[in-house]
């Protein structure tokens, strides 16, 4: 069975690479990786002019569309790619992602489910399907999918903090503190300079009653830039950590920083 899939993939690759638009697509992909997006758009359009049925070019154009917030363009490209090859798993995954990023969870769910059927070993699909079902209020099912994504990446040797964090956060939310801690410490091993990981560790410590250590982790998170957790979230955590550890002055200092950041610029100008 595996040999059949491999041969099929090889045949599809061969078909794509022999396409008249393939060289332009490869150039577009390199530009995309180099984050030269306008140039990449031009190259992928050229690839599709040469071969309108080139599925890798269609998926790349969809990715470029999503990056630019042109979800209608992305959707059209992916629907075209899937019409050409309904078993194109990556296109199917992106099709789910297009709906997910557009908040259309009812559309994202069946698309991700189909992508997962096409390739149950794709950890990205498991992760995003987990995020979708969690958003739809099914935390237990989401946790199983996060666990599956972690298992798949661990087996492939590609596990990273980004895959561990959603599950760790959900476990924290569910009050399963010890398990959450295990996931977070593993994530810390992969990304010791992730502010998101250290912020979650601080939250965990605060929930475990160790306010002093939570403050230490929170202060560390504040110094890091790799992550999406806002300064305000960290300051708020630090206020509570210092309040609980009896350091009112430091708590007040972080509250003042938050308030200063909240003040609209026009008001700031009027303040002395």
């Amino acid at each position, binding site marked *: 069975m595996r040999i059949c899939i491999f041969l099929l993939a090889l045949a599809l690759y061969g078909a794509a690479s022999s396409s008249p638009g393939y060289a332009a697509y490869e150039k577009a992909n390199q530009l995309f990786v180099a984050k030269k997006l306008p140039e990449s758009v031009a190259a992928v359009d050229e690839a599709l002019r040469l071969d309108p049925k080139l599925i890798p070019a269609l998926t790349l154009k969809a990715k470029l569309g999503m990056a630019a917030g042109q979800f209608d363009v992305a959707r059209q490209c992916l629907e075209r790619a899937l019409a050409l090859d309904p078993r194109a798993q990556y296109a199917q995954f992106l099709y789910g992602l297009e709906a997910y990023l557009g908040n259309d*969870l009812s559309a994202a769910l069946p698309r991700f489910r189909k992508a997962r059927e096409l390739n149950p070993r794709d950890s990205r699909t498991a992760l995003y399907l987990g*995020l979708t079902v*969690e958003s*739809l209020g099914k*935390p237990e099912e989401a946790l199983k999918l996060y666990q599956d994504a972690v298992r798949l990446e661990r087996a492939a040797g590609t596990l990273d903090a980004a895959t561990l964090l959603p599950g760790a956060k959900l476990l924290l939310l569910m009050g399963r503190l010890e398990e959450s801690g295990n996931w977070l410490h593993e994530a810390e091993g992969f990304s010791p300079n992730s502010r998101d990981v250290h912020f979650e560790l601080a939250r965990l410590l605060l929930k475990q009653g160790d306010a002093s250590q939570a403050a230490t982790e929170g202060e560390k998170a504040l110094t890091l830039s790799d992550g999406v957790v806002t300064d305000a979230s*960290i300051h708020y955590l630090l206020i509570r950590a210092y309040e609980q550890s009896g350091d009112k002055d430091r708590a007040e200092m972080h509250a003042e920083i*938050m308030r200063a950041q909240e003040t609209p610029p026009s008001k700031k100008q009027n303040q002395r």
Partner: protein
Amino acid sequence: MLFRLIAIGYLGGVAAFAATPPPIRFTEIAARSGLRFEARNGATGQFHQIELTGGGVGVLDYNNDGCEDIFFINGAAIPSLKKTGPEFHNRLFRNNCDLTFTDVTAESGLAGEGYSTAVAIADFDNDGYPDIFVAGVKRNILYRNLGNGRFADVTAQAHIAGNVWAVSAGWFDYDNDGWLDLFVSNYVVWDLASEPRCGTPERQFYCHPKAYQGLPGQLFHNNHDGTFTDVSQSSGIARHIGKGMGVAFADIDGDGLTDIFVANDSVRNFLFHNKGNGTFGEIGLEAGVALRDDGFAIAGMGADLRDFDNDGKPDLIVSGILNDSFLLFRNLASGGGFEDYGQRTGLLMGTRRFTGWGLGMYDFDNDGWKDLFFALSHLAQLDRYLGSDSALPNRVFRNLEGKRFEDVSAAAGPEFQKPAMNRGVAFGDFDDDGRIDAVVSVINGPAKLFRNITEGHSHWLAIRLRGRRSNRDGLGATVHVHLPDGRDLYNEATTAVGFASSSERLVRFGLGANRSAEKIEICWPGGARQHIANVAGDRIVDIVEEAGP
């Protein structure tokens, strides 16, 4: 608000008592009680943001006949913002004292004007009759109860006409001068001509609140003569720009001064600590009620400040939208602020899939522990994104001895399971049986009256305060009941409950198996204490404030 969906992840004696308590149950009786009302939001598919708020409902005894009446708030046509027909009238229903209601809107003079959103009810002029403040979009109205079944619009002479979008309001006496002051919770700057449009022409939806500029709340001081002074600036309230939704009052630190909580939509909540000198300090951050545990600003909707764990300090519940989880904060002793208690009580995960508006913390089974009622519905646009209907059934959570909240909605009766676009909810005992009922306003659908039919033999006590030095309604008082079985219960005198709504002013207690209260202590606004011993239960007790020294 829609954008928030992807926020997850990435981005007397004691009677014999049954061991198993009977389930909390309701039967829905609006239609057969003559309570026929639909809150119209004027939506015509154009996704005007003002369609999202409104739906306030009030409970009051406007004619002092001892039976709780109901006042519904209604929208208006868009874009005129005018009540172009009777379908947009606010409506007053008189309780005939037999659980039927008569529409007395016309004779009361309360049909209203403009796009109304919320109601706040209290006796602001201390004449013994409840008055009505109606908040709205660019127009607020104050009605004085004339005592003869009619109300007079006294907005102009009171100097409290609004010109912004108000979503909730409430009465309280911040300076303990014996006269009720008014707090108005304003949402965002909105104008039809410059309203942002969101989505695409084919897939329009309501904008996230971040598309709008926020507004500060307003505080109006009662001048004792039918006029008010806007003290928003001098009090410090106006310094804090939020996107205000529900408002709740209580003395959070036991200093005899009433404090203010404002739930904000997608920006942090405010807790205004009353300093006692006419000013407030905003301490939401330090008190730990500004944000969710992870620093996330939920789409705060309704709020209530009451003691759920019977430790004598008012705790805080706040509703939010899908994936926010509703927030429960436990008030810590001795100025320690609040701790996030949603996870420990099961509410965090138990409410994560809901969008909640109105709410209330009341003891529906009279077992001595206050339960939670939530009026639910997703935003009207969400059905096509979620793949399920935006209409939701309401939810009731039973308080398990102050330690956990259990969702007992499934056993609450077949009519309780019916989904609707539920919005505001107000609480009162409409049939005087000691079991608290709930009236729910439904957007573009028939209002619901949930009659509490919980069985069992629990006893109850309701206290109707009459202030003399304090405001006549006694709002701001804290009542402590000591029971023969040794338990102590606490509750707040307030009508500002939940979202855009106003509940009965009685202070209620479930006594469980106790037929009486051994001791009642009233802490009046300002801190004066009054004690009454051996009070029989299963009745409403009138308590008049002692004369001053």
